[in-house]
């Protein structure tokens, strides 16, 4: 990764130098100089990897074409098997029963769906499609940075914790010149040197900081690490509020729990990326895989809304995947790689309780190449709406080059 000196690095470095490395008052004080405007929104972007089956997430159960194309895996109201059951929200669409907590959020107007999102340039390759979405430039492989990485430049802030990815690797969406905190577990963000009477953490911290001074990529990565430590170690991260209970298993539960902690701590975090892997690439026996993956998604989103309470007004959650799956079930009670898939959104100020975008229909002639749900909403329209209406980003041209956005209506 090439990595230019940037405003954030500069401010962070200057701040630490002025304060004495690792000493003195918290660099959080620096936010006073560059505070974000009051009410500035927080984006929580959930990227689900594997190409999940949108048609069994928000299911067009009322369409006979759907029932005919998926005789072994189509969801049905009141099915005795909960993995095949759909919770109708009208006579055509329903929510997979494994996502039951989403029904209340939808009816409360906090949650909504865009059921046919994508772009035909995304291809049926997981990896190309993920890259294209994260780069924000479908069809252009050479784009070096990510759409959020470009957008951050227009979002005020001074700390490495302004943008956080819950991921084991830096997501391509965040590639760019701005430092990002990439972490799986915020509470373990400290050095561990020795035990008992032999603890030497203070010395290790001081010397390692001095070793990571310098301008090589590796040294800068270390500087980001210590900058993140400076923020997180000085900041008590609050426990879940309002009786919210997150799924404990690794994945979306801990990520959204920690996202809420950052938001409630009020340290200026503006963009949070939640990387979600699992069994979403459902080529075989997908009902069982879907249930295992969807149950924690529904529970975690409900817990997140409950935990944030009125602070959900400042937050917009946007979830999507790289592509949808074939409309017709394959030979192994699964589905293969397709095109359009559902995106979902949630927020206190979101225009929820809606199913947005044009529904392309499921007759053979209405499908992409007679096999996949046709995408009718460009994924970049979702990004543009969030940036413009929630994040205060004015110049969309530099973030989503060559794209003229169409309003979706989520906000």
């Amino acid at each position: 990764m090439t990595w230019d000196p940037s405003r954030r690095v500069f401010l962070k470095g200057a701040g630490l130098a002025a304060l004495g490395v690792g000493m003195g008052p918290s660099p959080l004080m620096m936010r006073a100089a560059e505070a974000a405007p009051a009410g500035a929104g927080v984006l929580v972007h959930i990227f689900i990897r594997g190409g999940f089956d949108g048609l069994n997430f928000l299911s067009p159960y009322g369409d006979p074409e759907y029932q005919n194309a998926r005789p072994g895996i189509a969801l049905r109201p009141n099915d005795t098997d909960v993995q095949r059951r759909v919770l109708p929200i009208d006579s055509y669409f329903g929510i997979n029963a494994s996502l039951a907590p989403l029904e209340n959020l939808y009816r409360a107007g906090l949650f909504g769906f865009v059921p046919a999102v994508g772009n035909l340039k995304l291809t049926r390759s997981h990896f190309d499609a993920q890259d294209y979405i994260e780069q924000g430039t479908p069809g252009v492989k050479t784009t070096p940075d990510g759409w959020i990485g470009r957008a951050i430049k227009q979002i005020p802030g001074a700390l490495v914790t302004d943008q956080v990815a819950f991921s084991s690797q830096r997501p391509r969406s965040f590639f760019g010149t701005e430092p990002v905190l990439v972490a799986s577990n915020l509470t373990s963000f400290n050095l561990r040197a020795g035990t008992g009477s032999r603890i030497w953490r203070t010395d290790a911290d001081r010397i390692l900081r001095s070793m990571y001074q310098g301008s090589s990529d590796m040294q800068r990565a270390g500087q980001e690490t210590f900058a993140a430590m400076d923020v997180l170690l000085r900041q008590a991260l609050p426990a879940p509020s309002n009786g919210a209970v997150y799924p404990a298993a690794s994945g979306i539960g801990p990520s959204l729990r920690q996202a809420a902690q950052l938001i409630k701590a009020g340290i200026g975090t503006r963009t949070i990326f939640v990387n979600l892997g699992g069994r979403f690439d459902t080529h075989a026996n997908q009902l069982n895989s879907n249930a295992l993956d969807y149950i924690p998604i529904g529970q975690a989103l409900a817990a997140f809304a409950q935990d944030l309470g009125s602070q959900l007004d400042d937050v917009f959650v946007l979830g999507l995947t790289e592509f949808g799956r074939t409309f017709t079930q394959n030979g192994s009670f699964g589905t293969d790689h397709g095109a359009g898939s559902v995106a979902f959104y949630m927020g206190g100020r979101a225009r929820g309780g809606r199913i947005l975008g044009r529904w392309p229909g499921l007759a053979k002639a209405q499908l992409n190449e007679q096999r996949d749900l046709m995408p009718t909403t460009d994924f970049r329209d979702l990004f543009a709406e969030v940036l413009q209406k929630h994040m205060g980003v004015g110049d969309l041209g530099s973030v989503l080059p060559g794209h003229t956005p169409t309003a979706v209506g989520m906000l």
Partner: protein
Amino acid sequence: MATDTLSAERISPHGGAAAVAGTLAALASAAEVLAQDIPAGDLGRRAAVHVLNRLGFGPRPGDVEHVMSMGLDRYILQQLDPRVDADLEQRLEAFPALGWTLPQSWDYYISDQRQDTNTNYIGDLNNQQRSAQIVRAVHSKNQLHEVMTWFWFNHFNVNIADDQRVRTSIHDYEAQLRQHALGKFPDLLNATAHHPAMMAYLDNYLSTISRYDRTGRLTSGLNENYGRELLELHTVGVDAGYSQDDVYEAARVLTGWGIATGVGRFQFQFTANNHDPQATSVFGLTIGGGMMQDSGEQLLKFLGEHPKTAEFISFKLVRHFVSDTPPAELVTRTAKTYMDTGGDVSAMLKTIISSREFWAEAFGPGKYKNPFQYVASSLRAVGAEIRPVDGTTRNDTRAIQGALTTMGQGQYTCIPPTGWSDKGAEWMDPSSQINRMNFALDLVSNTTNGSATQPFQGVFVDIPALLRDNDVSPGDPAAIAAFFNKEIFGNKLFPATLAGVQTLPAAGAVTVANRVVGLLLAGPEAQGR
């Protein structure tokens, strides 16, 4: 300490030992262009460290001297032509389950299902496999062979957590990749295509000709998963220009390729009844009707000889051994070698190692290590011994396995078929960094007995003894840093590092020795290879 005790017995059939053309010339040319300030006496050391880092999992103390006294060319040729390593074989005796045949393995799996003993056989098999991977990386003298086994496993990724058929056969799958790791690419492709682990992981064992029940409902049929990834990830690559129809037809040609399981049986099996025998064409290859299993064999042969495969494999090799952004010209030269030699891996590696591009890397900060590379190289740098805790026979590396999982690279658990990212920069982030620093600091808290109370049970590290053996005073931070600078870092430690470790407060010699090394391994220079 590396000693030259490899036997004469070759591990696998091999193309021969022609000289690595122009290695030293390429090195000298790279040095001249890029690093005129390198002291002349330092060049050989820098080159030896580079070779140990790129063709292996980094130097152990003594390795640099060994390579220099043996001669770079000779060392490289030895790495390209692995011989039986008796010391390693003895260490691997701690992992008897890895010798199970597939039918034996399946019987143990059935036994686990019945719960007729208290042993979890397959869990134990998988634990032994993870331990053996660490032991091989840390101790094998055939370092390049292990690097290439890792590389091919990652190229033909399967996920141990995916399916019981993968879990019970993954040791055999890796053994087959190791067998061909420096051989011919088409043999690697064939081994994976005919293995239960791959047939299960990418669902091909479920893919059949369309079948319907009495009411006309589809009961089984095509599954595109393996057909697609065979083209996209294993051979010609996503940009080769194939269409969705080609994916579909590839999958159709491969219907019937699956797995046989049962008492005393666990193997790849072609099931004629599941196969769709229609004539077809895939990416320009015409396949006649009724060819049965041979249609798939023809497709594999076609893909193994395809120039796009040569290009894609070369791109990935150059990315691994040279740079996150592979120099196009070197990729082209390597692809030419592929086409000239029928995909001979050793020959392609010779092309890469003989290039100026490869040697130019010896003078930069290096490619950022992935977690496995970081952990293996750190263990090697301190001369760690991985062996059973005193009084036990079982080699247990669970603490190291856990550290790898924390760093985001749990062994054999990469979910997507693309494998782990081989771009170093994608592993460079604060989460990775803090976990690496803590791994290094934990490692030097380990005492010599490697007992259960240590951070890493079964890992024996004695840095003070290592220093004393080399006439370095364990209480002297400057001398310790100088020793590791020479032995491990090719004299590339930054001035800030050398100055930093000297500010450690005074303490006992053992404490000082361990802390200095912990800092060096946590520092920036240890993150690149």
